[in-house]
């Protein structure tokens, strides 16, 4: 989902609104922000299933000037939320480098084998 602004604008991260597509941790998110459908920045909404697998990206935090490794994990088992759609591709690589590929439905490891896409969370797993 593209914003109203120039779709080819350079990524400029902010640290003030997790529901906006330019929030710094969402630098390689593909889909919908879980905070907009009952989850939070790092937690899944009620009734969904949290994947254990993920793709990753190194995102720059403008507040402390550090880059962090974000492990994007999908919340699965419900239809797509349709809220806060967002697609960013900082450092995103093609499918033959799947650890950095974000078109993939990263629902592997979710409870009940849930594999439908609902939304994505953006937890930090380390410094990059």
């Amino acid at each position, binding site marked *: 989902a*593209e914003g109203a602004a120039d779709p080819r604008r350079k990524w400029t991260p902010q640290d003030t609104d997790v529901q906006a597509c330019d929030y710094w941790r969402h630098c390689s998110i593909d889909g919908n922000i879980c905070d907009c459908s009952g989850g939070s920045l790092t937690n899944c909404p009620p009734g969904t299933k949290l994947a254990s697998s993920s793709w990753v990206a190194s995102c720059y935090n403008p507040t402390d000037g550090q880059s962090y490794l974000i492990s994007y994990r999908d919340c699965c088992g419900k239809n797509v939320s349709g809220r806060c759609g967002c697609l960013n591709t900082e450092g995103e690589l093609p*499918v*033959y480098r799947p650890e950095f590929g974000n078109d993939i*439905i990263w*629902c592997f490891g979710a409870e009940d084998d849930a*594999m439908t896409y609902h939304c994505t969370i953006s937890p930090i797993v380390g410094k990059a």
Partner: protein
Amino acid sequence: MTHAYRPGKASLRSGIALSAVLLALTAPTGALAQDTQTPTAQTQTPAETAPAPLAAGETHGTRAAAEAAAHLAAGGEDEPVVLQAPAPDARRVYVNDPAHFAAITQQYIVDGNTARVVGMVDAGFLPNPVVASDGSFFGHVSSVWSRIARGERTDYVEVFDPVTHEPTADIELPNTPRFLVGTYPWMSALTPNNKTLLFYQFSPTPAVGVVDLAGKRFDRMIEVPDCYHIFPSSDQTFYMHCRDGSLLKVTRGEGGEPQTQNTEVFHREDEYLINHPAYSPKNGRLVWPTYTGKIFQADLGGENATFREPIEAFTEEEKQAGWAPGGWQQVAYHRDSNRIFLLADQRPQWTHKTPSRFVLVIDAETGQRIARYDLGRNIDSIAVSQDAEPQLYALSTVERTLFIHDAATGEETSSVDQLGHGPQVITTADM
């Protein structure tokens, strides 16, 4: 046809064209309808003559209204039936709407000649569409769940008649093997004889599923190395692209153990080959751009893959000015003219999936740029029809519209709007 027509708007067209239009767009009356054996489930035979293109200022709606008014004024009766689509030709276009990861999705079947939706089919989560090379059928590999987006998952292949759009095969795939991913056309493919469908499995291990369409049954999974995409080069052979930068040739064999063979590594680790290459099964040409517009080409039709000298779509100066490919289906290849169409724009690095406003036309043999079209809007996917005077299809995901251009001039000739929620994939057949 026995209808009389009053002079007026309709009189601008010839009687022959009008008859053809009426046959295609409205229910038949009289003898045609009486020929059907089941009055409660009547269907129409496909139009023998394709409908005439719209005149200036005319829309499908205004044309149909004029025809209905003429029919009514002439005392014609309405006898509703189920229509059939015109017989497919090289300009039949399939627009798939992955709908931004929705659990159910839709495919729009468009007649490129008239820019008219001639039918639709439903599918589940992130289906992979396929179209027979002779137009004799289309289908998809799809996934559904017993309770909308949860519960028991079923992966299946569905095949449709191209005229009635009725399913002619429904083949279940055991152990839910489909790779669920934003739709990459070459993650599923038909063999040249259209008898076998191949699909990719990502997890738990890389594999390619074999579906016997002729026998309407799942055949088997073929384990493969860490490779992606499927490009059939013969009825028994297909190629994949591997993480190490080589291609993998897989020879299925009849029942026996598949044989695999890697080519040389043909690109560097930091040259990123996009997820939507163009491939012509008819001549085996694989056209594969990178993020920066370097275009690798391989010919897969012979005994072994042969690589061509890579093309740079942009000069160093243009690269410095930010020119790079971008979008979803960013490249198309027209076989007869040996031309490459590349969707591109000025953009910062790492915006490779955002839409582009320009299409470059490149001679695939010499690498020379033939033209640059300014489409004037944000386009995510392109494709071309494979006829002698090809149409260039340009799909805008955000506008949910397919724009149809003359591929020789870039001029926009027509468009089809309201194509779902987030249409991304264009499929045509090289008939």
